[in-house]
C-alpha cells in the first residue's frame, strides 16, 4: 500500500462518520469502522455485474452481492457459461457463492 493511499484513508476518516443501521437493526459494522478506500471501492461495485472465471474454466456472470476477506463472492441472477465463447448455451443458476480459492479472474462491467 503506497503512502498516498494511506493519506486518503485518514482523509476518509474525517469525512464519513455517520452510522448506518442495517435491516436487522444492528449497527452496520463496516460503516461504523469508517469505510477504507478498499471498502469504498467494493461498495461502489455492489449490484454491478461481475464476470468471474473459475479454476475449472467456467465463466459465471451475475450481480455482485456480497464478499468477504477470503474473496468468497455471492452473485445474484447468475448464469454459467462453459467457456469464454458465450455463444454456447448459458445455464441459469440464480444465487451462487463462489469460493475465493476457485476464482481465477474477475471482470467488472463498466
Amino acid at each position, binding site marked *: 500500500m503506497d503512502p498516498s493511499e494511506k493519506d486518503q484513508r485518514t482523509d476518509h476518516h474525517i469525512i464519513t462518520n455517520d452510522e448506518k443501521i442495517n435491516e436487522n437493526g444492528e449497527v452496520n459494522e463496516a460503516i461504523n469502522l469508517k469505510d477504507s478506500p478498499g471498502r469504498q471501492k467494493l461498495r461502489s461495485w455492489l449490484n454491478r455485474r461481475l464476470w468471474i472465471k473459475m479454476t475449472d474454466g467456467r465463466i459465471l456472470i451475475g450481480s455482485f452481492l456480497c464478499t468477504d476477506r477470503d474473496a468468497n463472492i455471492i452473485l*445474484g441472477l447468475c448464469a454459467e457459461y462453459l467457456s469464454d465463447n458465450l455463444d454456447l448455451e448459458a445455464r441459469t443458476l440464480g444465487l451462487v457463492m463462489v469460493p475465493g480459492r476457485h476464482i481465477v479472474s474477475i471482470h467488472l462491467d463498466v
Partner: protein
Amino acid sequence: MAETSHDQELSELCDEKPTSLQESSESWVNVTSEFFEAISELELGELLHDELFGLFEAMSAIEMMDPKMDAGMLCNRGNNKHYTFHQAALSGVIKLSNFTAAEIIGIIDSTYACIVSWLEGHNLAQTVFTNLYLHDPNPIEDRTLKMFCVTVHKIIEEIKECIIRASVYEEEDFQSVMYGGYKLQSDITEQKTIAMMREIEEDLHKKTRVKPSVDEMDDEYNDNLALYARIRFTKMFYQVLTMMGRKEQLPTNLQACQRILSNCSEMLQLMIKTINRGDKADEITDHPNVMGFDPMINQRQLPPTLPRYTKIRPRIEALVYMDDLINRFKNVTKITSYTNFHSALDFFMEFSRSSPCILSRSLLQIVYLPTPNRVFGVQNLTDVLKEAARNFIAPPVLMPKNNLLQNHQAKDCIDNFLVHCANFFSTLLQISGHNRARQRDRIAYLFENFAALQDEAERVDSYMHSLSLKSDCPRPHLACFGTWILYHTLRAMVMYLLSGFELELYSVHEYHYIFWYLYEFLYGWLVSAITRADSFIMEQDLHNEAQKSKSGKKSSKSKKRKTLPRPYYLEILMNQALQNICGGFYKALVGFQIDEKIPLPESQFDCEGVRYEHRLYPFSSLITPPPVNYKKFIEMTHHLRYRNNEKLTSEPQYLEGCRHFHQAKTVLERALELNPPQNIVNEINDLMKVVKTNFVVLKLLAGGHKKDSKEPPIFDFSSHQHFPIIKLP
C-alpha cells in the same frame, strides 16, 4: 418479502445492461488484482454487502465447486465433448445399423438399469434419457433396437400415467418432471407397437428353434435366445402395464395379466441367465458403459437445485429388481379375489407392510379403484361398503326384509352416510398406498375426519333406533354404524402408534407410555368393539331363525349354523394376544425404570409430559375413545412405582410382564388351532418368537438376574417390526 423485492430490483438492474458478453465485450474491465487488494482490508468474518442483502438470502446460495451442490462441475471433468444423438450418429460415435447381438443386449440391459433407477426416485433426464438412442428412435436402422426404443417410450409413458393417476407418490418416491424437453413417441399406437414387437419376437424365436446339434455353447444360438427373451419380456411388460392401467373390463384384463406375468418371470430368468452375453457386462461402473449412453448428456439441462449425482444400478441388480417387481405385480392382481371390503383393506395394509415400490403401490390403487368410487370399475364403493357394514355388524336397517328403508327420510339418511363413508374410506385406501413414513403423517391428519364420521354414524344409529322402535318388529339399532366406524378408528390409532416403532421415531425412554396406551386402551377398546359386533351378528342369526320358525320353515341348516364358531373369534384372539404383549412390554419397562436401567435425557432439558402429549396429539380430535392426557397417565400408573410414598421393587413388575407374555402365548396357540390363513400364521409365528424369548428374559430378571447392572437392555426389532425381543447385554 424482502427477497422478492430484492430480486425484482436485481432483475431491473440486469435488464438495463446487456446480458451477453458478446454484445458488450469491450465494457468488461479486469479488476482481479484490484479486487483482491480491496478485500484484504476487510476484517476476518466481515461481510461486505448492500443493506438490502441479508444473511438469510446468502444461505440459499449454491456453493460453486462443491460436488454435492454444483451440478455443472461434473460437466467439465475429462472429456467435455458431449454429442447429441444426431451429432453422435453423424460422427460415427454410435452406430445405427450392423449392431452385434452383444451390443444390443448391452444396450437393452443398461436401459433396464436406467428404468429401475428412475423408478427408485431419480429423474428421467439423468437415467433413461442418458441413452442417446431414446432421444430419437426413428433414424435407428436396426429393427430390433428401434422397436425396443419405441416400446421403452411407451412403457415410460404408461408408468408415468399410472403413478400420476394413483397419486400416492411424494418427491422422494418419484420424479414426474422430465427435463430436457424430450418427447415420448406417440405416433405409433399401442396395437401397432405390440404387433411389431411380436413380429420381431417371432423372427428371433424361429432362429432359436434351430438348436445347435453338437455344441450346446453355440454363441449365435445363445445370443438369439438372449435377444428373444428381452424382446418378449419388453413386449409383455408393456402389455401388462396397459392392461392394468385400463379402466374398462378390468377383471377380465387382470386374469389375462396373471398369465402374462408368469411368462414375464420366465423371460426374466432367461435374461438373468444370459446377462453375460451383453457387451461389457462384467465391468462395474456407476453408469452404463456401453455405446450410446452418456451420463452427462442432460446435465446442463437440469435445474440448479437438483440432486447431483445419479448412480445407475448395475445391470444384474436391475434385472433382479424387475423380477421382484413382476412378483409384486402378481401380488397386486390377487386383489381381485378380495371382494369383501374389509379383507381388501387388510390386503392393502398387508401389501404396504413390505414397503413395496412406487409403481406396484400405484397399480394396486388404480386396479382397485380405477375410477373414483367404482371398485374394479364395476361396483359402486357405496354398495361395497354397505355390504361391509352388513357383514361386520348386521345393522337391522341393512338386512333383507327390513322395511325401514321404505321410509324416504331413512333411505336418504343411510345413502348420505354411505357416500360420506365412501369418500372417507377411499382416502384411507389411498393413504395406505403412500410410503410408510408419509402414511404416518397422513393418518395423523385423518383423525379429524374419523371424528366427524363417528359423529354422523351415531346420529344415524339413533335415528334408525327411534324409527325401528316404532315399526312392526322393533329391534334396537344403537351403536351399529357407530361400532363399525369406531372399529376402523381404533385400528388406525393402533397403526399410528405402532408405525412409530417401525420408523424408529421413539426413544427407549418413551416406550413405556406408548405400550401403556396400546395395552390399557386401544387394544382393550378394539376387543370390546369386535365383541359387540360379534354379539350383534349372533343376535341377528337368532332373529333370522326366529323369523324362519315363525314362517314354519324349520330347516336343519339353521341348526348347523349354531355350531359354527363365532365369526370374530380369531380377530378377538389376535387382539387379546397383542394387548397382552403390550402389557408385558409395559410392565417390563416399568421394571427397568425402577432398576434405573433406562438412560433418561438430562432432566433440565426434558419434560416427559410434553413428549407424551406430542406423541399422542393426533388423537386429541377424537371423542371416542376419549384421549387420555398425561396427568391421567401419571395418576393411573403411580401405584406401580410407589406405595405409601415408598419406592417399590422391580420384581413384581417383571413377574407381571412374564404373566402377560405367557398369556399372549396361550392365546396365540389357541388362535393357531383355528387354522387361520397363511399370512396370519406367519404373523403368529413371528409374534410367538418374540413372546417366548421375552417370557424367558423377564423370568430371569424377576429372579434377580443382572439386578445391579445399569447396562440398558437392547430392544431388537429384527423378528417383528413393531414388537422387539428384549436382550440383556
